[in-house]
């Protein structure tokens, strides 16, 4: 199967998926939980892929994702709240200092750029650190950022620890879907480019990569900034989904959730991260919700079921994946049309041979 055909069929599949989602949106009631899950799944897919780009493809174990999402969300919020609504949003801070607003797309891009800028800044000192030290330093950075954005001295910009709201949001699932597809598309292009190869070389062996003339500092910083850019865009989307922004939402447990998505999907697999994001969100927020309510089968009360059981079951599943299916759903392979084609061809071919 040629590369070109593979690309065309993949694109068609994606288009079909998009059509399906739009159809779903038409047929289901507009606030059906499935749509909510799909919206949130899209956003988490984007953020998970951005984390995978760093952790899976560049081998930099960073736990700062929530911090960059926070920066993205705030940038978007601060820039896009309509001027007329600022007085009521910034009610404790005399309407804030930003007295203009920009279109949604500009806001999204600005969200990414600001996050990337902060990544560049923090990258200067911390990217020299090795594996788990880097992890803990980035985790710490996310905590610092969270405190910083809640600081009431900056309240005229960030509204202190109060909610930012009334910024433009999306109704249709088409918007997060498109943004996610475009962003993941760009990341895939980067991963498959010469730079992506350099990232993977760094992951495989830093010293050898350096001996191949790859500037470690530059490429690590680049990966860090790219990842943060898309995390920032993801944060802005999450803000739109939540319709309000509060720094307290972006705590380290959010980073852990994203990390678990990456692990479940397979470290180093973009499609794995996407599939895992939807499975993760759907099962944690929808499919397993019945575990939280008491249930009777006839007069028999099903034991254990009460608030919180869903999360226990869910974390046991996650733990099982981490321990027993260490490579996750996709390992480091990708789901591709060509892959399936070859898989069936092999199977079919073998049967042919057996005859």
């Amino acid at each position, binding site marked *: 199967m040629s590369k070109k055909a593979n690309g065309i069929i993949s694109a068609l599949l994606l288009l079909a998926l998009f059509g399906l989602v739009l159809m779903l949106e038409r047929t289901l*009631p*507009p*606030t*059906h*939980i*499935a*749509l*909510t*899950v799909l919206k*949130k799944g899209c956003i988490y897919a984007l953020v998970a892929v951005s984390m995978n780009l760093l952790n899976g493809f560049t081998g930099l174990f960073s736990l700062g994702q929530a911090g960059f999402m926070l920066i993205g969300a705030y940038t978007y919020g601060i820039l896009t709240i309509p001027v007329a609504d600022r007085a*009521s949003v910034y*009610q*404790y801070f005399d309407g804030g200092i930003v007295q203009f607003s920009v279109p949604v797309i500009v806001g999204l891009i600005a969200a990414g750029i600001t996050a990337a800028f902060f990544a560049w800044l923090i990258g200067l000192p911390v990217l020299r650190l090795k594996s788990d030290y880097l992890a803990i330093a980035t985790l710490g950075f996310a905590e610092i950022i*969270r*405190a910083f954005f*809640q600081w*009431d001295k900056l309240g005229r910009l960030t509204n*202190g*620890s*109060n*909610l930012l*709201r009334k910024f433009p*949001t999306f*109704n249709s699932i088409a918007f997060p879907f498109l943004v996610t597809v475009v962003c993941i598309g760009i990341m895939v292009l980067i991963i498959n480019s010469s730079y992506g190869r350099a990232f993977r070389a760094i992951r495989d062996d830093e010293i050898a990569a350096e001996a191949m003339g790859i500037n470690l500092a530059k490429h690590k910083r680049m990966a860090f900034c790219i990842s943060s850019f898309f995390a920032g865009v993801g944060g802005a989307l*999450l803000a739109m*989904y*939540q*319709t*309000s922004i*509060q*720094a*307290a*939402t972006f*705590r380290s447990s*959010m980073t852990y959730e994203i990390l678990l998505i990456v692990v479940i999907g397979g470290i180093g697999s973009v499609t794995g991260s996407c599939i895992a994001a939807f*499975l993760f969100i759907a*099962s944690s*927020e*929808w*499919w*397993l*919700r*019945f575990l*939280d*309510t008491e*249930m009777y089968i006839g007069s028999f009360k099903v034991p254990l079921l*009460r*608030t*919180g059981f869903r999360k226990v079951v869910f974390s046991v599943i996650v733990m099982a994946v981490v321990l027993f*299916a260490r490579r996750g*759903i996709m390992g480091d392979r990708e789901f591709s049309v060509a892959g399936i084609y070859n898989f069936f061809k092999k199977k079919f071919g073998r049967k042919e041979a057996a005859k």
Partner: protein
Amino acid sequence: MKKLAAAAVCAVTALACVFPVSAAETVKIGVYEPASGDNGAGGKQETLGIQYANSVCPTVEIGGTEYNVELAIVDNESSNEKGPTAASQLVSEGVSVVLGSYGSGVSIAASDIFEQAGVPAIGVTCTNPQVTEGNTHYFRICFLDPFQGTVLANFAAENFDADKAYVLTKLGDDYSVGLGYYFQDAFENELGGEVVAETFPEGNADFTSYLTTAVNEGADVIFAPTSTEAAQLIIDAAAAQGINIPILAGDTWDSNVILNAAKGKDLDIYVTTFYQEGGNEEFDANIKEWINSDSTNLANNGGDDTVAAVTAMGYDAYFVALEALKAAGSTDPAAVTEAIWDVTYTGVTGDIKFDSVDGDAARDAAYVKTANTETGAWDFVGVQQQK
């Protein structure tokens, strides 16, 4: 592995489809409350009030038909991020009206979901003005933070001759920060006092240093509008340091958690609240019996049968919702939304009537109580009217 996962997914989907079977003559009321997270304790007490009301009055006559009222309860995890999904869960179960939430942030976060679905929501104890401001689907039956903050500031000035107050709020908690802001505003601008304001971050357990600062600054009162989790720690730290400055707080502190924490300690604690236990003896006696009848209820109420104000508010909110359903004559959320504006109801917490701007209840009185550290009960101090 993949097959296994697929099988599990199928099974779970099947279960999810099978279970929410709805009977024909049922109207659903959504309960959007936290059962975990920071506000878990308060949320559970509020839910108890709603559940009790449901047990008292499980049916309603709408447009001549008798409907069973079914409560759809979800946990919004006190989290603005998880809240919207919980809200859509309610909406997709087809509720006619939503009650909740305890905590303003989650209410704001879910507001748009309800708006899109055209489902009205009645805030029970979310006191931040932003919940109802500028929308027509979110109502509330409690007073607002500007009112509560002013009441407390006046109370401090009148009863303790306070001219310096220490305000301790939780970073990132809009309830806490909001109420602190209004207190400070009233205390400084209207009463000419001085305020020292500090914030503590999420997960903070050590309040020693904060209270030391309060003492060092020579504060006459400490105002700490926080969740009950932090309240326990503040009380404990204050007692350990032997602090004898009066501690004031808002409605969240009106909880048996506070009473238990303060019992046997030498502290002055004052709270404003929506309801005073003993205000309606019949209601008190019945709900206590109901709480004691079930160990889960008892646990959800924090282990004893003290009636929290939020429980009484939850109880009233349920009946307000029933009134609205009756007035609408239909279970259609749009009709219910229209009907709520004109609902008047006299509940255990007083008269409830909505204004025509934001759908806030017109409340002009707050109860002030003090914790009796010997008996472990609330003593009534007085009613503070709006000036």
